[in-house]
């Protein structure tokens, strides 16, 4: 079998687009969970981002406004979750699941008028000279804005969590909310910020689907990616660096599965479609075991906080 450069390039480009929405949504959830809040509504927030991004981009003709709208819509759907779980101390698991159902239903309703409309595509960057380089040009310098943003956000989240005072406070709230409260930090306020950030990033991930991945709106177009993002957070042991590896690994194995099928070498298709899950889980668990210590879940993950005085 022969694999020429253009086929390889198509594969690599597709891997980037397949991984970016997962990375964006998972990064947001990682910050939320680091603050001790388990929001299972990622799928719902993603799909709201997808419909809002598409609708705004189409009506204004500006995909960048669509990106902003996607983030806002994700955060807007996260807001009732924040109110219910943080202020009214509702069960996070149940509320998160309800959020997914709400998001899927609401997006279908909002999006009804937009089904079947040709979308506005987020432009790929073009840096004269660099983007024209053979092979690596389109790959490294010719992606759309959100791809670069997702990587930049991963670095920023990592710096924030482990090298800033605010990040330390956020982690303290997630690991021991009683102590953080005793030290005078507002647990509820920190968690509110984390929940909204998580919503905004999930919205961006959804917006990536409807603005860059497949520029169109169809109901339920996230097709379970929110759940994969949730799993990635757990298997990356709440570490941004490993999350990037996990998201790209998942995307890469998915796309390579299609590639191998296209070659017609007779590997069972069912095995290939199960591989992304297997490989990602095994790889991330292996990394976590090797590094050991201190990688467990935030101690207060999923626990409600009621100030006792």
């Amino acid at each position, binding site marked *: 079998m022969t694999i020429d450069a253009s086929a390889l390039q*198509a594969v690599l480009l597709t891997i980037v687009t397949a991984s970016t929405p997962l990375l964006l949504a998972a990064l947001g959830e990682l910050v939320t969970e680091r603050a001790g809040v388990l929001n299972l509504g990622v799928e719902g927030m993603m799909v709201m981002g997808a419909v809002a991004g598409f609708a705004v981009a189409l009506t204004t003709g500006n995909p960048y406004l669509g990106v902003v709208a996607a983030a806002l819509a994700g955060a807007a759907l996260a807001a009732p979750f924040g109110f219910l779980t943080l202020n009214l101390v509702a069960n996070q698991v149940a509320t998160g699941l309800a959020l997914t159902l709400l998001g899927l239903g609401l997006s279908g309703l909002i999006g009804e008028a937009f089904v*079947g409309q040709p979308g506005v595509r987020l432009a790929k960057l073009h840096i004269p000279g660099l983007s024209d380089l053979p092979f690596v040009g389109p790959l490294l310098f010719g992606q759309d804005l959100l791809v670069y943003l997702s990587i930049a956000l991963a670095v920023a989240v990592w710096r924030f969590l482990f090298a800033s005072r605010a990040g330390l406070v956020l982690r303290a709230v997630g690991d021991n909310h009683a102590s953080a409260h005793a030290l005078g930090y507002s647990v509820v306020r920190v968690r509110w910020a984390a929940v909204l950030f998580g919503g905004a990033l999930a919205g961006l991930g959804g917006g990536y689907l409807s603005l860059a991945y497949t*520029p169109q709106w169809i109901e339920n177009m996230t097709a379970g990616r929110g759940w994969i993002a949730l799993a990635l957070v757990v298997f990356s042991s709440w570490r941004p660096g490993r999350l990037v590896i996990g998201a790209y690994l998942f995307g890469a194995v998915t796309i390579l599965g299609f*590639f191998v099928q296209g070659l017609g070498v007779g590997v069972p298709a069912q095995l290939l479609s199960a591989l992304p899950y297997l490989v990602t889980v095994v790889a991330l668990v292996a990394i976590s075991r090797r590094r050991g210590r201190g990688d467990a879940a935030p101690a207060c993950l999923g626990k*409600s906080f*009621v100030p006792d005085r």
Partner: protein
Amino acid sequence: MQNWSALTRRDAMKAALLGSVALAAGNTGAARAADKLKAAWVYVGPVGDFGYSYQHDQGRIAVEKALGDKVATTFVENVPEGPDAERAIERLARDGNQIIFTTSFGFMDPTLKVAKKFPKVKFCHATGYKRADNVSTYSARFYEGRYVIGQIAGKMTKSNVVGYIVSFPIPEVVSGINAFMLGAQSVNPNVKVKIVWVNSWYDPGKEADAAKVLIGQGADIMVQHTDSTAPLQVAQEKGILGFGQSSDMAKFAPKAQITAITDDWDGYYVDQVKEMLAGTWKSTDTWDGMAKGMVVLPPIVNVPDDVKAMAEKTIAGIKDGSIKPFGGKITKQDGSVVENLDDGAILSMNWYVKGIDDKLPG
């Protein structure tokens, strides 16, 4: 303060399942008028998919239009295949629906199970093969359309590589691949088909990924047996041609779609409901194709006139019975030869014809 983290992941899964079923069932309470015949439809995707489920829902709407206030229809969309479907179907039966159409292959066993519990309710299951006194089956000869698009693809491909995105290795899909290949080989012996299974009927992202990878591997015609419009949109973006699936997808990819294989269930649904009203409904096995208008190809565009004329001639031949996609001698992938396949052989097809590189999963 209660410790909510004690909830296990399994509880969460259960809650999610219950939630989705409750939500799905919530759509069904529409009409409750007495003496109207109550008919219900179960869809695997959203009615807004502009593909398979959309086309079934057009049939439901046709029933409402044709029979007016004699009938009250409801539908449940996005019902997952497998055991979960049973709850959705049973709920419809309990709600007093007298005839229930379950429109996806994976609803087969759930339909049979519910039918046993509700012997007075009539069921019609699409694309399956198990029947009972109160369960009919119906399907369309999709493969007839696939033979035609195979011929068009065979004429139109320059790289002699066709990308073919498929969902699950069920007979309907396999016979579609074979009919496509036989059609293509009838006009172009050098054509190759690259097959990618995405293991989903409806995942725009995955379908688009598969399309991009196939085009990267040299495919210049895109064929799909999945329900979203994404592969065709990728085809348009990359400047190649393709075919729509289940419904006319021209408005999503006007420059890429040559034609589509569309299902027209209107006639079948209206007939079934009419027979219910007349009290003459019987369990039947319906398998119609182009001749009865159950499989329809929208006008052929984006190809030269001679290719269009050839395709139209083939369509006419299939309609009058002079062309049978699975007639004559057919060489299987393993080299053995079969002849003039009957319906049973087509409905249970689990082998590839010669010339296909893929290995059939399962």
